[in-house]
């Protein structure tokens, strides 16, 4: 088994076979988090630098814990805004970080393209923790793992993603990944929150939510940013939650064995209310647990070789 990628920038770049490899391996790493001593010496002596230019608690925490459980050393830097706000060009900032010889940079950035550029220019591994509206590959992988864990297989699974698809990198990465794995995808949201070109994605699109809930095995609710609800994309929280929120009635319309997912953090009362978030069908907390396992898997695969196998 050969792992040819130095970096994880986009699900677009990972083949279906490679996704399978990741999902199959994640179980082993999940088990480590259940032990008393939640640590293996695998990445001992490796340095992982987390550059989070956007606020994020759970993804950053998840990556840090994943790296630490593999015995790597982690350093986390948070900065709001981009490096540009300090008058530094991106490549300058990256060169500065490289001078400290990290083995891996985990980067979350408010604009698309930086992880791609860093991966191209830097010798260390680059893991994309979300870049602008582009991709959030590790989230998609943990989402797929959670689905596979529950249903056994992704092929033919009916996945419904609801919400602000237009501005969601989680949606993009999930659609790309799930399609590679043979799932059937339906997207639902108001037309203003569907991205340009969505008709070329090979997915079903429905601006009405209720008709498509009963056929879904997975109902994934996306976070809607409250600021966007008051701009011209939609007319406020009340209307949004009425037409697109997951509430008691909609949960009752779901298939008996269907599950509820959410990448977090949740806007309770907007896209999802407590009936849905806290009910038995919700595997939202599994997602979080699986996030650490998936990130451990990716760190192991990208860093465990030491050489750029490309």
């Amino acid at each position, binding site marked *: 088994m050969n792992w040819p990628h130095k970096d994880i920038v986009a699900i*677009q770049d990972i083949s279906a076979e490679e996704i399978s490899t990741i999902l199959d391996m994640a179980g082993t790493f999940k088990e480590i988090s259940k032990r008393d001593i939640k640590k293996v010496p695998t990445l001992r002596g490796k340095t992982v630098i987390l550059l989070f230019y956007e606020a994020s608690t759970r993804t950053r925490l998840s990556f840090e814990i994943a790296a630490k459980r593999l015995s790597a050393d982690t350093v986390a830097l948070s900065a709001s805004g*981009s490096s*540009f706000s300090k008058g530094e*060009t*991106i*490549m300058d900032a990256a060169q500065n970080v490289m001078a400290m010889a990290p083995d891996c940079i985990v980067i979350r*950035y408010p*604009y*698309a*393209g*930086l992880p*791609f*550029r860093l991966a191209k220019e830097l010798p260390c591994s680059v893991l994309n923790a979300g*870049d*602008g*509206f*582009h*991709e959030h590959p590790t989230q998609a992988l943990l989402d797929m793992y959670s689905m596979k864990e529950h249903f056994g297989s992704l092929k033919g699974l009916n996945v419904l993603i609801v919400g602000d698809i237009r501005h969601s*990198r989680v949606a*993009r990465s999930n659609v790309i990944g799930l399609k590679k794995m043979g799932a059937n995808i339906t997207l639902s949201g108001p037309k203003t929150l569907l*991205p*340009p*070109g*969505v008709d*070329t994605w090979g997915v079903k699109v429905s601006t009405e939510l209720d008709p498509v809930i009963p056929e879904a095995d997975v109902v994934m609710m996306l976070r809607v940013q409250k600021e966007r609800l008051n701009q011209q994309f939609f007319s406020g929280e009340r209307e949004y939650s009425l037409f697109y929120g997951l509430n008691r009635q909609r949960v009752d319309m779901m298939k008996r064995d269907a599950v509820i997912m959410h990448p977090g953090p949740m806007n309770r009362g907007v896209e999802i209310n407590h009936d849905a978030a806290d009910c038995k069908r919700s595997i939202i907390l599994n997602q979080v647990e699986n996030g650490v396992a998936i990130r451990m898997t990716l760190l192991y695969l990208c860093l465990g070789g030491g050489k750029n196998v490309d």
Partner: protein
Amino acid sequence: MWIKGGMIFNPAKDSAVAGDIFIKGDLIEGIYPVGTARSDNETIDAAGMWVLPGLIDMHVHLREPGYEYKEDIHSGSLAAAAGGVTTMACMANTDPVNDNPSVTRQIIDRAVKIGLARVLPVGAVTRGQKGKELAEIGIMKETGIVAVSDDGQPVEDSSVMRSALEYAATFGLTVLSHPQVKSLCGSGVMNEGALSTMLGLPGIPSAAEDIMIARDIELSRYTGVPVHITHVSTRGGIELIRQAKAGGVGITCDVTPHHLLLTEDAVKGYDTNTKMYPPLRMESDRFALIQGLRDAVIDCIATDHAPHARDEKDLDYDLAPFGIIGLQTLLPAMMEIHYRYGIDFLKLLRCVSIHPARILGIDGGTLTPGSRADITVVDPDKVFTLTKDMIVSKSKNTPFIGHEFKGGVMQTIFGGKTVFDQG
């Protein structure tokens, strides 16, 4: 000075015939049959070369005054000379804005002193290019502007645009319109569509351009005053212009070489040297532009030469400024269009000679005896790959680095003086 043995392309006569040109002082004295040239005079051997009137680029940004770190009139003139461009119309979005005669005067005087190209300022339409009050167009005309434009910005307020059209016409000037509905652009940085979504970059819908083209057409139709639309990039825009022309409206337009050669696919890889307004569009748009050249719906080719310093462009795609340089790649790009699409070179040549001259109300763009000796000698077979070192501008922001061209400028003569010599 003699230029002997070249294939002389004269758009005024619509002819391409071999001959010898004699230059006396700063004027073309006459065109003679091949072999007439005396060897005791200074000679340029143009055997196998094409001899063209010096190119006229009606849309450049020379950045002086105010942004001299990006480019100035001197470096811009050097770039023009290297590109075979002997006349440039430079836009008003300098600092201070060229909305008054003293800035106009400053630009003209600088250019004359430098003496490498004819620099014709385009005055602002509105004061400070703020889109509200008309600038002192009349006095600027007296000082030497050849057109007005708020380029860089659209004139958003339609009543201001209407007034501008009529007021500028009073002084015999055309408004060069930069068509952009800014509210539709939002934070867009590339063409809106499936690709922008895939790359995660906010998009600029084609409607943002087409709506304003339609507005300008209607205002022109209504007022009877001609308007020139600059840097058209969409299929819809070209179609609107085609229909307007067929309906007798006084519309003219120009397109850039990069919109004729590149599409939004160039944006993959996030190189900010592919970021400009209007953005690179889809293949169907590009194809429509090529058709527009073929059936002469497009009047001019103009580079929209927009230098930006390296540190400014070396930012996230979302944040980098819009614009790329173009003076040195204008002629090679035209050659590529000629070779790839089989469009008659004289047709393309008109787009950088007599057409812009007519729209700006200036002389030039011909090789008529008695006119200024502004001449460009081109080697139509020269194959070369553009490298960063070849670029003469202060700024190197072009997507064509590494691109192989066929056809390059060998000599540029301005007012009888050789201002560029490749050999």
